[in-house]
């Protein structure tokens, strides 16, 4: 378990904002990317593989001893109204999986319209200082192709935030 005690919530008059205090604060967002157009993913049964979500990749410079949070979000939709969807979306650095932003199953046998779900998830890391490239991927594995349905009013996105010092 990792915990820390931040600066006291009540500062005293005349207190100086030191560099230590500044370093204890969250740095806020480091990267935000979004996509506003659909992307299809072929199911594994038809030869599909885990594929990058196009546009949802970012390279950030992480400062020394920082804790970051990476969040992915998208609407995931069955490409066949009678199919079964298993959607596995991961947050990756290169070939290394860091966590899931989406892992959902959906069977649409009783519906007549395209079944869909809003998926969102994150990971919390303490990476080494320097440049890191993170991305979102998607794998369709349920027998049915799927779509990341994205538009100007329902963007798919990835957000990378500095949430404070590593400890």
């Amino acid at each position, binding site marked *: 378990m*990792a*915990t*820390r005690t931040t600066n006291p919530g009540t500062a005293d008059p005349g207190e100086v904002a030191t560099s230590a205090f500044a370093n204890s*604060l*969250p740095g806020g967002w480091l990267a935000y990317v979004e996509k506003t157009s659909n992307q299809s993913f072929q199911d594994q049964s038809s030869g599909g593989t885990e594929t990058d979500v196009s546009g949802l990749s970012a390279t950030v410079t992480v400062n020394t001893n920082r804790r970051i949070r990476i969040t992915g979000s998208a609407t995931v939709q069955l490409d066949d109204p009678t199919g079964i969807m*298993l959607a596995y979306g991961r947050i990756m650095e290169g070939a290394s999986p860091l966590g899931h932003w989406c892992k959902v199953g959906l069977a649409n046998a009783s519906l007549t319209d395209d079944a869909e779900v809003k998926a969102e*998830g994150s990971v919390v890391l303490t990476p080494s200082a320097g440049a890191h490239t993170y991305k979102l991927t998607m794998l369709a594995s349920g027998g049915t192709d799927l779509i990341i349905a994205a538009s100007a009013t329902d963007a798919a996105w990835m957000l990378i935030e500095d949430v404070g010092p590593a400890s």
Partner: protein
Amino acid sequence: MATRTPWDPVTDDVMTETRMDTLARGWLGYVEVTANQSVVGSSTETDITSLTVTLTVQAGRKLKITGHGIFSRSVADGVTIARIKEGSTELGRFCQHCPSAATEFDCAEGSIVIAPSAGSHTYKLTMQRFSGTGNITLNAGAGSAAFILVEDVGSAS
């Protein structure tokens, strides 16, 4: 509805203690698990082992607590609920999962925002087979951790 206007610094502004107090302080507690946990054949609400954070909250702060986990059921005949709690008090839910087939997972993530009293607080995640039969499982691994995250998002008002 609660709103506030953060300090908008301009050139030559002084960092006063009041302004320091308004700033978000970042994460306060984080713990993850990377192994599966199951509740077998029971509808009893169960603490998710290790997903508990004890911390000291400063006076006048607003916190955001997030739970994250991937849930599945052995029988798709009911609802799985995962909660954020302090002791026996439910603060909110981060998962409410009702699959139509046992092959369906739910990568669930949800948060609550609270302004607790100053002092020590212990927050935890729980899971429950709220209805139906069979077993429920929190699925977690090295590249797919379940976690609880507690953040200070600023002054309470």
